[in-house]
């Protein structure tokens, strides 16, 4: 064997292990990518359990996987758990992912959204804020903060974030306008509330909730005609939804010119809803508005005799006590 042949064989022996390692690496990367694709496809098809199984297997087998790939699989896994309403596991997955990738925008938003969904609003606020630290004008984070602050009743902050979101996003969304209108309505900023409720109505004019909100705003502005028109429309669209109906009858019972109509309507309502305490109360109020005090008091006594500790009962008791 010539020297050259021996030298070539020597080189092959030297590089073979390295080549095989690189080759194995390529295979591993290929396998990881395939698993991620499979998990994503399973998720997209709604096969959440399958996506979870692939995701879990991936994380067990590839603990040293690069962050980029781990991030993708964590997102699929977390989203799949969330889609199956398994919030505990979804929270664990996102939190675990954020330990590895604390600055990942999408993961922070996913976790914030999940906290919002599970009504842990203070935690949602914390992670929306983290998302804003990564991307200071992120629209999803701004909107999330607007909604989370609305839920905890911190209305000025809620309005602040809604405003920022609306300034940056020209896309018209009835639900955002509606929430912003609610935030203003609850703070008695009635002009802003009506402006945005009407914007929501322009986009979605078959939504009873929007008409109901507009009716309540007009009612607080003492614009009775507009309030009645809108609450009637809300009733029509919602097929006489009970909360809207009772509110409408309460308004009518409180006014002298409509108290008698309210009395007739509430008696009809009571036939279908014999257990409604508010209906009995509305009957009493419509009698009181019409000056029929004794009759009204006998109605309130019916509420007093009921065995509960509701606010309605406490009010009825107080009216009886004061008369």
């Amino acid at each position, binding site marked *: 064997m010539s020297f050259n042949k021996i030298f070539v064989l020597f080189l092959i022996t030297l590089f073979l292990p390295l080549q095989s390692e690189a080759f194995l690496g390529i295979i591993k990367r290929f396998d990881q990518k395939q698993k991620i694709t499979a998990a994503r496809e399973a998720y997209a098809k709604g096969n959440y359990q399958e996506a979870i199984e692939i995701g879990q297997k991936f994380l067990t087998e590839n603990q040293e996987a690069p962050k980029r790939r781990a991030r993708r699989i964590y997102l699929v896994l977390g989203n799949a758990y969330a889609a199956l309403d398994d919030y505990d596991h979804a929270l664990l997955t996102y939190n675990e992912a954020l330990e590895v990738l604390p600055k990942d925008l999408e993961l922070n938003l996913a976790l914030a959204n999940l906290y919002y969904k599970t009504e842990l609003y203070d935690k949602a606020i914390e992670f929306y804020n983290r998302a804003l630290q990564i991307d200071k004008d992120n629209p999803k984070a701004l909107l999330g903060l607007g909604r989370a602050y609305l839920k905890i*009743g911190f209305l000025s902050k809620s309005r602040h974030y809604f405003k920022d979101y609306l300034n940056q996003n020209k896309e018209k969304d009835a639900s955002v306008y509606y929430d912003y209108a609610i935030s203003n309505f609850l703070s008695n900023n009635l002009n802003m509330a009506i402006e945005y409720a009407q914007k929501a109505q322009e986009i979605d004019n078959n939504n009873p909730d929007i008409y109901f909100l507009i009716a309540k705003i007009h009612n607080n502005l003492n614009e009775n005609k507009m309030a009645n028109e809108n609450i009637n429309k809300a009733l029509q669209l919602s097929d006489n939804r009970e909360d809207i109906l009772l509110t409408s009858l309460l308004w009518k019972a409180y006014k002298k010119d409509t108290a008698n109509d309210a009395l007739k309507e509430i008696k009809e309502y009571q036939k279908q809803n014999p257990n409604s305490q508010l209906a009995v109360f509305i009957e009493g109020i419509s009698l009181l508005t019409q000056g029929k005090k004794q009759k009204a008091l006998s109605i309130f006594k019916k509420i007093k005799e009921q065995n509960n500790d509701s606010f309605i009962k406490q009010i009825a008791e107080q009216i009886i006590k004061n008369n």
Partner: protein
Amino acid sequence: MPYRLIKLLLIFLFCFLGQNIFAVTAKEEDAILRDFAWQKFIELPKQERSKVGVTLSAGALRGASHIGVMEVLSEAGLPIDYMSGASMGCIVGALYNAGLPLEHLQHLVNNINTNHISKDFNIGGILRYLFAEKLFSSAEFQEFIDKEVGSKNYEDLPIPFACVSADIKTGEKVIFDSGPLSLGVRASMNLPGIFEPVEYRQRLLVDGGIVDYMPVDLVKKMGADFIIAVYALPSFAGTKPSNVMGYVLRIGDLRGAVLTENSERQADFVILSRVGEISSSDLSKTNLAIEIGASSAYQALPKLKEQLIISGVNYVFQ
């Protein structure tokens, strides 16, 4: 299917459909009436409703939660006729009452630093405190308040306001309800053992929280007949203060917990801000305290509205 089984099924369906399964719950019915009556209540003329007094407790930086509480009460349209406060409660009450927007108040509290409180918070001052036993001066804080509110007097405030301080010589409670606002505020938050007492009319004044942590009695004397007490709740939870300031504040909290028991009994409604996990001296957590205050007040709001409506039921449902 056997005839009897079909009959039973039909009876079941008849009973089931006979009920209105979409009926609103008792809770929802209460909420409908509450929303309606609350609007009527806040529109009542002053003479036709309860006179509402709000008192804000002491609590050092935990008391920043009062800003969140005031925000919620104010947004709900709650009419406030009288106010009082001790220590941090006095600061928040005074600034709110002087017309500072709540958002500005949040900004102030989130950005406050030691230079706003004392010029002695430096190496020289600390050495004097340690070796010459000279307490820090809180004069800067008075200037800071004056700068923010524009040298207002108690008499200039739209809502009658009082805050409480203590005379370290006699142990007496000293009430500020007239004269320069900033002086009373400084005296009310003047932590004993840290700040030198404020000399005022032969008195040596220190933090009011040590004699009246939550001055319910002040708004009562002013004429309130419905008192809302706001308590920035401390939590001892077996933790140990980490420094001298922490020990001083802990003593105040312990004494405060005893004093507030009586104050809570005198109040018609108590809002508890669950800020116990926040250290009294942690400047970095004021924003969190404000948010906890807002969330605590918002949770308490339905019950508060109900009690106020009940107190004015004759005027709401005439």
